């Protein structure tokens, strides 16, 4: 991408001055009326850097009221945009990136040595001189959590309708439909309003879109990873819950298709460099459920193999899947009661949770690790499309 960073102006010290009466215009043009697409090709998180340069000038002239007022208007402006665009992934991701970047700037240039270890000498010259904005950092951190939660809600809302049909119902392995259990009508997943079936490709396309937007907007990689950990957890939970409630999908062939689908998702994670332990681990219960459907379920040795393999599934879940398991044809036997009792006996010492279904709305706590920028304020150029001519470079 083209990055519009100019060579530094000779006398520009990386501060931006404005008259107090222009504050509302600044917030309107830079926050409430801004369309993220207008900044394509510019430095990611440009609004955050511009706001920091304005804060820095107010700090430089020791005007605490101006700092208070600008930060309060900024925060209220961001909240207003988020409320107006509460189903817009791109807008929400854009303001998460910028709020986090502003928070990083307030740390990086706080004068606190703990946050300055990676600063260049030039960047150290751009630190705040008069005010300690620790309390505002807390407000921005709380705001970032709110925005993150909105982002997860939007992305889950887009993905959730696809999950059951893409993970459990769609048959992409050729010839597998011939070995499905007989006697079950093909079901549509949740809604009964016509064709709402999705293939795995639809989930992958949607996740590609999320990932591209977040990367382009300069969202911190650690946060992107947490978004996908959350989304993969939801895919796991929704799929496993359906498997635990539907006899027609508890079969060898669904197990095979499911394992293939999970491996496609893992491949996607690897391709996007997101295949970290904490993300991949969220899929473990589903991987084990798919393997459980495929394993032999007859001898004591089979029982032992199942018990040692299914460590991420509770006893209740293992027993439920075995009870629901549907033979493919008349040559395959049902799982016997005796076999299920053997499994229960072997697992009785496990201290398993008592609930059968997973809480698919569970949210992992989010963390925003400090991520200083290598950009120097005096290298940042303000594009004309922002209509901020009233800002003076100092």
């Amino acid at each position, binding site marked *: 991408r083209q990055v519009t960073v100019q060579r530094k102006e000779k006398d520009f010290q990386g501060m931006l001055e404005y008259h107090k009466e222009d504050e509302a215009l600044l917030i309107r043009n830079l926050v409430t009326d801004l369309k993220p697409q207008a900044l394509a090709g510019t430095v990611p998180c440009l609004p955050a850097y511009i706001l920091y340069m304005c804060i820095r000038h107010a700090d430089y002239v020791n005007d605490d009221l101006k700092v208070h007022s600008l930060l309060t208007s900024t925060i209220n402006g961001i909240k207003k945009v988020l409320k107006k665009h509460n189903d817009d992934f791109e807008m929400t991701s854009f303001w998460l990136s910028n709020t986090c970047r502003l928070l990083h700037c307030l740390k990086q240039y706080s004068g606190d040595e703990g946050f300055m270890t990676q600063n260049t000498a030039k960047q150290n010259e751009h630190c*705040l*001189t008069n*005010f300690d904005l620790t309390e505002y950092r807390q*407000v921005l951190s709380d705001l970032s959590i709110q925005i993150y939660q909105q982002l997860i809600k939007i992305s889950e809302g887009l993905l959730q309708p696809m999950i059951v049909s893409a993970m459990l119902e769609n048959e992409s392995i050729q010839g597998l439909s011939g070995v499905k259990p007989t006697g079950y009508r093909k079901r549509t997943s949740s809604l009964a309003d016509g064709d709402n079936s999705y293939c795995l490709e639809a989930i992958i396309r949607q996740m590609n879109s999320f990932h591209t937007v977040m990367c382009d907007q300069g969202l911190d990689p650690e946060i992107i990873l947490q978004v996908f950990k959350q989304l993969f957890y939801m895919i796991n939970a929704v799929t496993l819950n359906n498997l635990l409630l539907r006899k027609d999908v508890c079969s060898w062939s669904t197990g095979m298709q499911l394992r293939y689908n999970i491996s496609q998702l893992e491949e996607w994670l690897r391709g996007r460099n997101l295949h970290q332990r904490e993300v991949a681990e969220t899929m473990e219960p589903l991987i084990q459920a798919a393997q459980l459907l495929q394993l032999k379920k007859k001898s004591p040795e089979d029982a032992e193999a199942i018990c040692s393999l299914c460590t991420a599934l509770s006893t209740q879940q293992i027993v439920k899947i075995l009870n629901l398991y549907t033979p493919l044809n008349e040559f395959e036997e049902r799982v016997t009661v005796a076999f299920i009792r053997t499994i229960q006996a072997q697992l009785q010492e496990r201290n398993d949770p008592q609930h059968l279904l997973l809480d698919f709305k569970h949210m992992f706590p989010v963390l925003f690790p400090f991520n200083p920028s290598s950009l120097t304020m005096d290298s940042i150029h303000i594009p004309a499309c922002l209509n901020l001519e009233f800002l003076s470079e100092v």
Partner: protein
Amino acid sequence: SAQRPRPRVLLKAPTLAEMEEMNVSEEEESP
């Protein structure tokens, strides 16, 4: 060293919820 002394004056900030309340009451006051 190019490092500057640590900023000294702590600017007190309202919480996010307090900010929202202030913002709502300002909007109510305006015609």
